[in-house]
């Protein structure tokens, strides 16, 4: 059998599902966003033989723009928060004496919690009928639980950010700690001897060492938060809402005629994610080549 065929056959178990599910889904979504394979062939605008951009055009006259920027904000804020806190906590854990370091594996708990469970925890803790509101009421800090500040569904996205940040924290610590465990601890001693305080040691020695892992963590967490559905399903505000919820509503809860719009939203999300990753990779690579600080 020719070598090329053998290689293709060996790749088949990986390539066929990828082609069928990922590429197939992608092509189908893009096609539906352009009016092909429409569920409503009777509507001329949506069943045109030629491609139509009406799905995309409709998006920009609806909730999409506000929803896009809100999602971007939530994803950036939560991924940044997880990454910053995770880096710092990984450094703290790394600096603990051996016995305490083992006990500090408690940070892995959020890793085993499903996203939906984290969403429920945030809901139970921070909603106006939740645990903190009840405690505030019991302590006389608020007259009724409903007087507790509206941390969720207030338009600020705080609940979403908190849920994604908490869920992502363990992941960042895990990756950053793995990298730190390869850092020679005597570098810290060397820096301290040269007069560096704890802040300089962290920012100039530990952080550059973790930078690549933190960059990868940030990208993964950002993309998950940008496209995630489970946490927004429980915690997302309605106006503007997260893109995943907007897309879901466009696809299932309204007119069938909105389906090209839903597919257009998905396609834009995918394209944005791809551009975001490419942009990040380029910046990180440039920084690595010039300064090696990130």
């Amino acid at each position, binding site marked *: 059998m020719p070598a090329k065929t053998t290689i293709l056959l060996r790749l088949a178990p990986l390539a066929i599902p990828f082609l069928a599910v990922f590429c197939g889904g992608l092509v189908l979504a893009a096609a539906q966003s352009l009016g092909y394979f429409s569920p409503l062939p009777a509507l001329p605008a949506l069943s045109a033989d030629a491609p139509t951009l009406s799905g995309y055009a409709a998006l920009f006259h609806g909730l999409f723009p506000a929803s896009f920027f809100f999602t971007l904000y939530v994803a950036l804020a939560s991924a940044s928060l997880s990454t910053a806190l995770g880096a710092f906590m990984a450094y703290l854990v790394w600096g603990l004496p051996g016995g305490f370091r083992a006990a500090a594996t408690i940070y892995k708990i959020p890793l085993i919690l499903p996203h939906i469970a984290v969403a429920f925890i945030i809901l139970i803790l921070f909603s106006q009928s939740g645990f903190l509101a009840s405690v505030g009421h019991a302590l006389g800090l608020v007259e009724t639980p409903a007087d507790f500040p509206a941390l969720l569904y207030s338009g600020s996205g705080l609940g979403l950010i908190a849920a994604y940040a908490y869920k992502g924290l363990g992941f960042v610590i895990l990756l950053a700690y793995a990298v730190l465990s390869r850092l*020679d601890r*005597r*570098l810290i*001693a*060397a*820096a301290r*001897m*040269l*007069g*560096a*305080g704890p802040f*300089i040691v962290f920012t*100039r*020695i530990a952080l*550059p*060492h973790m*930078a690549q892992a933190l960059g990868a963590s940030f990208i993964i967490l950002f993309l998950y938060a940008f496209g995630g559905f489970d946490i927004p399903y429980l915690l997302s505000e309605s106006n503007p809402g997260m893109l995943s919820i907007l897309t879901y509503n466009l696809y299932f809860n309204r007119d069938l005629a909105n389906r090209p719009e839903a597919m257009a939203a998905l396609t834009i999300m995918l394209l944005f994610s791809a551009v975001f990753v490419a942009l990040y990779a380029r910046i990180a690579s440039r920084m690595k080549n010039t300064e*090696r*600080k990130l």
Partner: protein
Amino acid sequence: MFFACRDITKSYGNKPVLKGVSLTVQAGELVSVIGPSGAGKTTLLNILAGLDRPDSGELRFAVPPSKKRPVIMVFQDYLLFPSMTVFENAAFGLRARNMKKDEIRRRVCDALDYFQIADKANAYPDELSGGQKQRLAIARAMAPGPSLLLLDEPFANLDPNLKQDAAAFIKRAQREFGVTTVAVTHDLAEAFVMSGRIAIMLDGALAVTGTPEEIHKNPGGLEAARFLGPVNRIPASLALAPGPGQGFTSGGALYLRPQDLGLRKDPQGEALVQGRAFTGRYYIYEVALADGPLTVHSLQNGIVPGDRVRLFIRESAPAAPPTPIKETA
């Protein structure tokens, strides 16, 4: 006195590593603590650096180290910061002191010039040779103006042909900067080249301290003498009489360095050569005496197994013309 440690002890678990070490170092001195691996040299250095605490004993500085005049150690593997350039590494200690940018640039450029790595200012540590890494590590340590510089095995990661140059360079730099320096090493020749004073540490204790010449002539004990190089134990029955500065006695036996002991072919000689090996610097002869076997380290050439020889004390040999060798391209 710059600093003095008195009766320092240190154990790890049940294993004593330092057993009452006392050492006084004067300001501006370069003292090398030499000894075999596991003798406790690095533990002593860590205590001087403040990275470890003694179990007992006292370490006293005439002027206690401060952030302005710190104790800085250059580690065996240099521990350069891998994400920083040569310039940034050298500037690290100055930046940590919030010095002005212009002043940092001036001082770092001067230091890189002096340490002959100015052309590598924008390179990263993994782009440097072993010698350049060492010079950068010393430049980084010197830049903040330390009160005490500690060198941990400064020659361990250098090619053999670079060690002597590095030793001479460290000696020059130490004198130039006037920084009191303590080095620990097991590279004897380099320690002798660069040090004003040497302390031999054996099994957690300082066996002897003195100038390189003093130590060489009188190592103070058999173990220390053996650490400094091969010695011949000549039984009293041979009745050899050394000249001034040649050998030393211990337990009734005479001890001589290879350069002081010769073998001369003599059919009436007291020793029969049974084996010979060349180490590159001297010969090791296995000889049989009337009262038992003896191992002889000597520079003497031309003796082969089966020869009967007489042992004698060598006088200073007149200088011989060097043997011409072919130059390599």
